[in-house]
């Protein structure tokens, strides 16, 4: 299984029936592919839609129906549309159950940095700061390391997305949570052992007696 599939499949296990879920651009978008049928999860697109459906078939795209990246999508039966003030009232107001975002760094306190690299990349924060500040549960879906460097660090060097800590980190080799405020290894990916995860993690992980394997 490739790293992105591992991450997307594992995040999908976090979704519960009836959840309102916002998926960020990149790996988080893939989560929708692994939602079990019949779970009745609502996906929000921040540009003003609840009930996003799959990419329409060739020739069926509607120019006024797109995702937050401007790509054509479809709307499922029961979908609703609204303006940006409503969309972010839902986000900031705690009505979104789960937000899944990509990350550049997450630190031992759960702080996420995912919106700029000073001097190199300044795309803007889009909706990320509102999502992390306001969603009930924040899940970071990202590769564990980039170019051999751990993305799970002692302290974020990059500008933070929010002062509010995230709830769960899902990577291609591990699931990491915050138990009693301590960054804790919760699961490892199939075929990966605890020592291997520790070796490529900069932050000092708390290791429980038993660390189960991801059930993906």
């Amino acid at each position, binding site marked *: 299984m490739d790293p992105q599939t591992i991450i997307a499949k594992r995040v999908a296990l976090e979704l519960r029936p009836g959840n309102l879920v916002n998926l960020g651009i990149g790996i988080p978008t893939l989560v929708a592919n692994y939602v079990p049928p019949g779970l009745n999860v609502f996906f929000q697109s921040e540009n003003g839609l609840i009930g996003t459906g799959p990419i329409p078939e060739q020739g069926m795209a509607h120019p*006024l129906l797109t995702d937050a990246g401007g790509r054509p999508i479809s709307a499922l039966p029961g979908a609703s549309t609204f303006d*940006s003030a409503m969309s*972010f009232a839902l986000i900031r107001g705690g009505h979104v159950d789960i937000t899944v975002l990509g990350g550049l760094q997450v630190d031992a306190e759960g702080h996420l940095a995912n919106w700029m690299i000073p001097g190199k990349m300044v795309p803007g924060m889009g909706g990320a700061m509102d999502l992390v500040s306001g969603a009930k549960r924040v899940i970071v879906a990202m590769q564990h390391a980039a170019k051999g460097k751990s993305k799970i660090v002692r302290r974020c060097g990059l500008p933070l997305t929010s002062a509010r800590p995230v709830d769960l980190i899902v990577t291609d080799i591990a699931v990491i949570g915050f138990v009693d405020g301590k960054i804790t290894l919760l699961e490892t990916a199939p075929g990966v052992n605890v020592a291997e995860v520790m070796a490529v993690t900069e932050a000092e992980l708390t290791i429980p007696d038993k660390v189960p394997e991801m059930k993906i």
Partner: protein
Amino acid sequence: MKAISVEEAVAKIPNGATIMVGGFMGVGTPERLLDELVRQKKSELAIIANDAAVPGSGIGKLFDASLVSAITASHIGLNPKVQEQMMAKKIAVTLVPQGTLVERIRCGGCGLGGVLTPTGAGTIVEEGKQRIEINGKHFLLETALRSQFALVHAFLADYLGNLSYALTARNFNPVMAMAADTVIVTAEHIVPVGVIAPDHVVTPAPLVDYLIANR
């Protein structure tokens, strides 16, 4: 509301104007007004919009023609021309979290001085802003935004100027239609009064100054 040609409408916009432009990555953007801004070479524009779209589309066309001196937006990352002009210091870019941006515009249109939001507290967005603690939680005071012009794109406009929107093309449009001195609207369809049922009017007619007539 007055129905006028796109040429007449854009002629009312001076160089250096502050302009809100509806749309999200070019969807729900008043393209005909942007094309005419480019044709009339209106320059030094200060744009307020969600994003900078991509070159060749939506607001991107204004950057292609180097007509913008400042932009306030939540995201510019998908338009390399804006990144380029920002790095060359040809344009001033103010990045605002998307939810904060729309609330600031909403405040501007609703007679409010600003809004208290938790978004950005404890990050670099907080710099230079007043931080207010309420019941132990930190909020930033984000002030209202208004502009001289709002360029809005609707799905339906009736002969009076009542507007409704379609799908994800609604986005910032109805909020911006409240927050500018002069509101100029393009619509996919212009329809007789009554076609938009009262319950389906999103932007009431008195908010619209000019509707761009069909050719």
